């Protein structure tokens, strides 16, 4: 899974958000390391929607403060499965890498 897909899904798994909300959340989440610029952000949102991993909300949540001008997104069940699967993959990768590195260090 692409890195910005993963972070977008991760961000949406906590709450429904609009585009700039996702951007700020991902920036916070990664301590400013991952910044989603507009074309990448919205292009990826379209892609995720076509994948069926997120969907667009018909109307913004009641507590939204943007006068209904922005598009809001929500993660789907398929999206949660996808991000969980990616997390599992990453964890196994981390486990394997850590074991190998620990083993290598022992030998040296």
């Amino acid at each position, binding site marked *: 899974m692409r890195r910005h897909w993963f972070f977008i899904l991760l961000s949406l798994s906590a709450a429904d958000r*609009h*585009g*700039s909300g996702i*951007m700020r959340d991902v920036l916070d989440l990664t301590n400013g390391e991952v*910044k989603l*610029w*507009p*074309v*990448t*952000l*919205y*292009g990826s*949102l*379209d*892609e995720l929607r*076509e994948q069926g991993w997120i969907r667009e909300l018909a109307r913004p949540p009641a507590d939204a403060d943007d006068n209904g*001008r*922005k*598009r809001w997104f929500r993660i789907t069940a398929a999206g949660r499965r996808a991000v969980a699967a990616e997390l599992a993959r990453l964890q196994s990768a981390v486990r394997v890498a850590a074991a190998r590195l620990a083993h290598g260090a022992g030998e040296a």
Partner: protein
Amino acid sequence: MTSVARVAYRTLLRLAPRDLRAKHGPEMEALFVADLAAARALGRRAALGVCLAAVADVARRAPYEHWRRRGRPSAHVRHEPLLTSFAADLRYAARSLRRQPGAAALIVGTLALAVAANVAVFAMVDAVFFRALPYPNAARLVDLNEQAPTWGLDFTGINYADFVAWRRTARTFEAMALWDDAGFNLADDHGSERVSGQHVTFDMVRTLGIAPILGRSFTQAEDVPNGPNVVMIGYGLWQNRFGGARDVVGKTIRIGSAPYTIIGVLPANVTLDGPATLWLPVDENPNQEGESYSYEGVGRLKPGVTLAQARADLAVAQAPIWQRSDTSHTVSPRVMPLRDRFVADYRPMGAALGAGVVLVLLIACANVAGAMLARSVARRREMGIRVALGASHSRLMRQLLTESLVLAVAGGVIGTVVGRMGIGLLTAGVESPPPWLHLTMDTRAVAFSLLIVLVTTVLFGLAPSMSARRMGAAGATMEGGSRTAGSVPERRMLDGLVVAEVALAAVLLSCGGLLVRAYLTLRDVDPGFRPDGVASVRVSLPMATYPTWVTQGRFFEAVVAGVAAIPGVTDAGAVTCPPFGCHEGMFYAAEGAAPKRPGASDQVVLTRRATPGYFAAMGITLMHGRYYSAHEGSPTGFHPAVINATLAAQLWPDGSNPVGKRFVFRGDTTARDRMTVVGVVKDVRHYGLTRPMIGGLYLPLTTMDSTGSRAQFTIVAHTAGRPEALFASMRAVVRGLDPELPVFAVQTMRTALDHSLAARRAIALWLAAFAGIALCLAIGGIYAVLSYVVGRRRREIGIRMALGARSPQVLGLVVRQGSVLMAIGLVIGLPAALVAARLLSSQLGGVSARDPLTYAGVVIVLCGTGAIAAWIPARRAARVDPTIVLSDAT
């Protein structure tokens, strides 16, 4: 400031796909503006960073977004493998083109014609203007010659003593060499033949930078008076006569009845001027200064030397000669790029043809564009249906692209093949092009014309998909059949294309017309002799068997007598230089004229020896006095002369009758060489009808002495019948006197005259052909557009006629539309033609570049044919039956 940034970003976002912009544009802008505002608070660097990052974001992601959309037109359409769909496209294209075979053939034919013309003409343009001469470091080769403005000569030829001084003193040259064209009688056991060759100085091979295929070149010791009889043979002779045998070096051949040893073999196509079969050393004496200026020169500059430096260098080398014998600097060296010397004659032709053929290509492209545009409107319904059935726009575009490519590739390939074959035709009429002028296809020109063809077909081939996209499926299917006359932009574009075609055709027709008129005018110029019914052959006597002027003179007397006795021959004679042949110049002054002031101009006079029968055989018009008779004059006594009108005016500018007056070789006042005018004849245009005639005179053979010996004569004979019939008997006469002598330059004077005009005729014919093509294309364009418009407007015309419009009114409606296009085209085209004609003026001779007759003709031809082209569709329109058209649901 913020709004500026917002607009800039919005513009930048146009690089992203339209649907992404439509959906998220405002949010993307807002996000950027917010980012920028936050960054600005941190300072200019941060703001700049945001801007750069935003640009990088678009640059990185926008192509991907486009690709993503193209790759997956929509989620539910199965993505076909590209190759499979390409094959399907090809099949479909073939089917759709077969449905309209006439239109497809017309488009392919038009393209092929234009490409073929370009391929052929640019082969020549490239060879003449651009391609490097086939010598190593050819850019450093220069043409050497001498000039004498006061003699009225731009090229005098080089004096051998001058050349020796240059070779000794000049510092800027790596090497320099002289050559002189010559003919040789080559004899062996199988017979004799006349071959062309050159006398060259010993380091010609080094100057050109070539190496003999076999053997060696001349040494300096061989290039001296009475040097050894050595010869280098050309590639063709080596192949034909010696079968390419490698042991040819050291063998002996007989040249001019003397044995010569072959020392080397030259590569093919290396000689500078004319095909050379033999190279002999010039064998000149460097210490003998003379008045003879007969050599051509070539030099190889040292690296980095400019023409100006070379000129200055040669002037320094020439200085001692000026001091010693030419204090008024009458003759001075001249240096120019080698190419300029040889292509001068071909340059106007190359430029005119190149420009003409590009115009033809443009007209053809405009024509094809119009045809494809018209076709696209006709296919709007088809496109609409295909969109409605679920074809994506990208799929449609690929389909149309394939069709266009099929047309372009077919036209391009056929055109290239035909053009390749046509290259030879270009120079067919031109007198012996230089051997290094290789006419081969020019890759760049081929690529250029193919590119233009491709761009045109693709651009206009995609038009149907554009209109389908603009209207959407529903609009296209519903309106497809009944729209009135195509949408406004398409109509405008069609009209514009026709106007452009007419304008370009007007330019080509005017230029072609002017050149044809110039050629016809030239044919009417009086050559000064009667070209019809005259046969001529040339014979050259070898010094070995005819060593003295007495034996030579006796031989030619016998030949002339023999030819005169041939049945059917009315007159026969011999001359040293026939018209369009050679040149021998001398200087003369009227007896008692004031001595020439230093620096004053001194005209060269063409000097010929001729038997009395020559005048009658050639039909040269006598203006005053008489011809000399057969036995009049002797080397030591009376010197009769027949002079031409120009020389008469030159020697006696007061206009008095020169008959009986006397003149002398300039500077020579001994009574021995005093000549008496016995007759004045009309100028014979010796240098061709396009060049002015200089002063000229004829002297009898009887006054020749040992110094004036000439071993070569042209025999002419006049007959009332076909002159070609005389050739065999004239050969027989020569063979009867000496079986070893070859007869050459066998031709009628009419042929010689036509040949002298060959280049002019070739330009005129080719441009006339291009003009004809242009006319056909432009007229075809008008016809096609009006037919199309009439077809589209059938319903409207039907309504008009139902409402009471008469046939003539409908006719007028359509014809008027054609006339307006034609008129606009002419208004643009004629001034452009005037400008183009000015550039051609050097080729027009006596015809003015503003020749009203030609332009009137162009207007009449274009309007006349245009009217016919408009009339046919107009009549079709006038015959529209309202009841049928209006009841037709589509």
